[in-house]
């Protein structure tokens, strides 16, 4: 019986040793690094058809079963991350008592035991009274190190000061922060979602389409009042802006102009400027001035939608506004193409019919009203274009995002205090023997011993001068 009990205790101990071992941490970190590489070499989350172009169906099926095509969300990758979390927590918890002891049980007294354990120590004898020395010691420590705490015990006066005590918590904070970030990520993947919505200018919606294709009701209405693109002189896009308004039960509660990097946030939802485009079934409205060629008279003005026609009543001609190109150019083959969405060279294709028979096909350019190629007895001037555009928004809800940021801030604090601060302690013990003051000075630093030795030497030189 007794033998058995010992055995189980032994295996329990081994198990907890395994989980708290830093060997496991190192192995997990290196293993995670290695498998992560695979996910950057094999394209992730493509469609089956796309994969079958690279792989035979046998290897496709095998890789799919192993979760290689969505590696970072596969059960075994998540298991590895989970193991790392357990390992981090186990290591941190194991170290809590020791860290707490260091943090709370600081000895302001310099005992002989301590002196033996410390590497940096020195003895100075001075012919000075304690009263004279005391204020000088305090001043030096304050100036060159930190404010000392004084303790009087059995006629011996101890001075103790330290720096960056709480940097010892750095390890703990860093490890816990990793777990917090992962918890935040998990909350996001469980209860968060992502969707898209396209709203035409002037239009509104209360539904978005989720990534899985389902529609989701927001519970409020979003209206797009205006969408605008600005371009640099070289034609590169400079800015995409949407003026959005939120309505609750018909009442406007919030308006904001969003652009890339400046989303709108409302009730846990965030609206990001993602794309834009023309509403294809409504090409927008153009204003055309029609004059008799060569005539000085202003002629008539028509407002017409792209794709629709109007009739010149005096002649019985029907004009169809067939196509609209905001940035008309001809490619190498002489084909008409649209270079961009910007109004760099707005052009209209007009088809002129007489008695349902196509008579003329011509182009009208807003910037070149006297374009020599335009044909027919009438001259058309493109006065104004009111395009119908939509703004494409990405909508996300991620209840874990603030948890992630909390973890990130803790991680930065933890790592900075671990690497850039070092817990340093200095003690001075003074004892009067006759007319001599016997000083013992000792110190220790958690990190950067070489740097601390310099600090200690400087303090020693100053103290020797009192």
């Amino acid at each position, binding site marked *: 019986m007794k033998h058995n009990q010992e055995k189980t205790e032994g295996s329990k101990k081994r198990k907890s040793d395994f989980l708290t071992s830093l060997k496991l941490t190192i192995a997990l970190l290196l293993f995670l690094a290695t498998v*992560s590489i695979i996910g950057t070499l094999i394209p992730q989350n493509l469609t089956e058809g796309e994969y079958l172009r690279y792989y035979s169906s046998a290897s496709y099926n095998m890789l799919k079963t192993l979760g290689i095509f969505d590696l970072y969300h596969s059960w075994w990758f998540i298991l590895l991350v989970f193991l790392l979390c357990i390992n981090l927590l186990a290591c941190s918890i194991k170290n809590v008592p020791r860290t707490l002891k260091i943090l709370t049980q600081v000895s302001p007294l310099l005992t002989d035991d301590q002196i033996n354990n410390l590497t940096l120590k020195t003895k100075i004898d001075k012919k000075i009274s304690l009263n004279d020395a005391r204020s000088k010691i305090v001043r030096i420590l304050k100036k060159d190190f930190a404010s000392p705490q004084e303790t009087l015990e059995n006629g011996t006066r101890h001075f103790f000061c330290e720096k960056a005590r709480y940097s010892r918590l750095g390890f703990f904070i860093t490890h816990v922060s990793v777990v917090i970030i992962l918890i935040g990520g998990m909350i996001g993947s469980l209860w968060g979602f992502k969707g898209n919505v396209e709203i035409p200018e002037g239009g509104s919606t209360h539904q978005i389409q989720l990534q899985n294709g389902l529609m989701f009701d927001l519970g409020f209405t979003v209206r797009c009042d205006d969408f605008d693109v600005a371009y640099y002189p070289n034609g590169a896009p400079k800015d995409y802006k949407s003026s959005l308004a939120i309505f609750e039960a018909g009442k406007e509660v919030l308006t904001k102009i969003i652009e890339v990097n400046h989303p709108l946030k409302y009730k846990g939802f965030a609206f990001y400027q993602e794309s834009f485009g023309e509403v294809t079934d409504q090409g927008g409205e153009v204003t055309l001035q029609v004059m008799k060629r060569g005539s000085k008279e202003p002629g008539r003005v028509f407002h017409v939608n792209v794709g629709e026609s109007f009739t010149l009543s005096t002649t019985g001609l029907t004009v169809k506004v067939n196509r609209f190109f905001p940035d008309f150019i001809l490619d190498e083959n002489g084909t008409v193409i649209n270079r961009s969405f910007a109004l760099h060279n707005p052009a209209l294709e007009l088809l002129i019919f007489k008695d349902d028979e196509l008579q003329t096909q011509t182009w009208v350019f807003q910037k070149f009203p006297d374009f020599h190629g335009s044909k027919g007895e009438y001259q058309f001037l493109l006065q104004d274009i009111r395009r119908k555009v939509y703004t494409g928004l990405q909508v996300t809800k991620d209840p874990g995002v603030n948890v992630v940021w909390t973890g990130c801030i803790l991680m930065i604090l933890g790592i900075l205090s671990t690497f850039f601060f070092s817990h340093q302690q200095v003690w001075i013990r003074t004892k009067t023997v006759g007319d001599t003051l016997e000083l013992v000075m000792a110190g220790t630093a958690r990190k950067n011993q070489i740097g601390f030795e310099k600090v200690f030497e400087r303090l020693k030189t100053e103290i020797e001068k009192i």
Partner: protein
Amino acid sequence: MVSSKILSVVTFVYLLSTFLYICYLAFRSKVIGNLATMVTLSGLIGQIASFILRWKESYALGYGHIPLSNQFESMVFFALVIIFIYLVIEYKVKIKTLGAFVTPVASILLALTTLTDSFSNEIQPLVPALQSNWLTYHVITCFIGYAAFAVSFGVSIIYLIATVALKKRQGILPDEGVLDDLNYKAIAIGFPMLTIGIITGAAWANYAWGSYWSWDPKETWSLITWFFYAAFLHARYTHGWRGKKAAILSIVGFVAVIFTYFGVNYLLTGLHSYA
């Protein structure tokens, strides 16, 4: 542009300082050593001037932004930070032999950008996704990290040469213990900076695209690098992996850094197509 002309000159200045540091290694002459430091420092000053001028020139073109927005600008900045960190370390530890192994990295980076046509040095306007203050924080922290790793790489190369090749001729290269300590210190700067770089990148991605992490190849490789250096630090802390093992690890780590920086852009595709 004046900034480009200065940069071409700086390229040659850094090549000269590499040459001088190698001479210093060979002849151990104090005069050459001091000259090497002076030349490198003047190169750095020139490069900072060029950086500020380029910044101003971008405003003159009507779309002012800090010059950290494409492959060319980031490589130039990488070289700047490497030289800066190197000079700080040289000043602190008073070891000039490192120069022969660190300045070539900066020289090669600048030579690639200014002497070849592979990278366009034109000042380009910022696309909407890059118009964010996070750009500055993200790029600066990442490149301080990268540069610190570059220094640890240089130190590790010297370490291996000192222990393997020149075992019998002591005194030419710095003491092994000092090199090992420097290797650790450089990584102790690089790792926190890489961490902040990844976090600021995540924050930015969340503002721009609505997700802080999307397993984009660049993100993933930065995480791979982070895992690797985290393993390095833990191995050093518990198993006392020092000396040769640490040197080999930090060389491998720098290969991961270089892949994160260059390899991803040229060999893999993703969102992070700027630099």
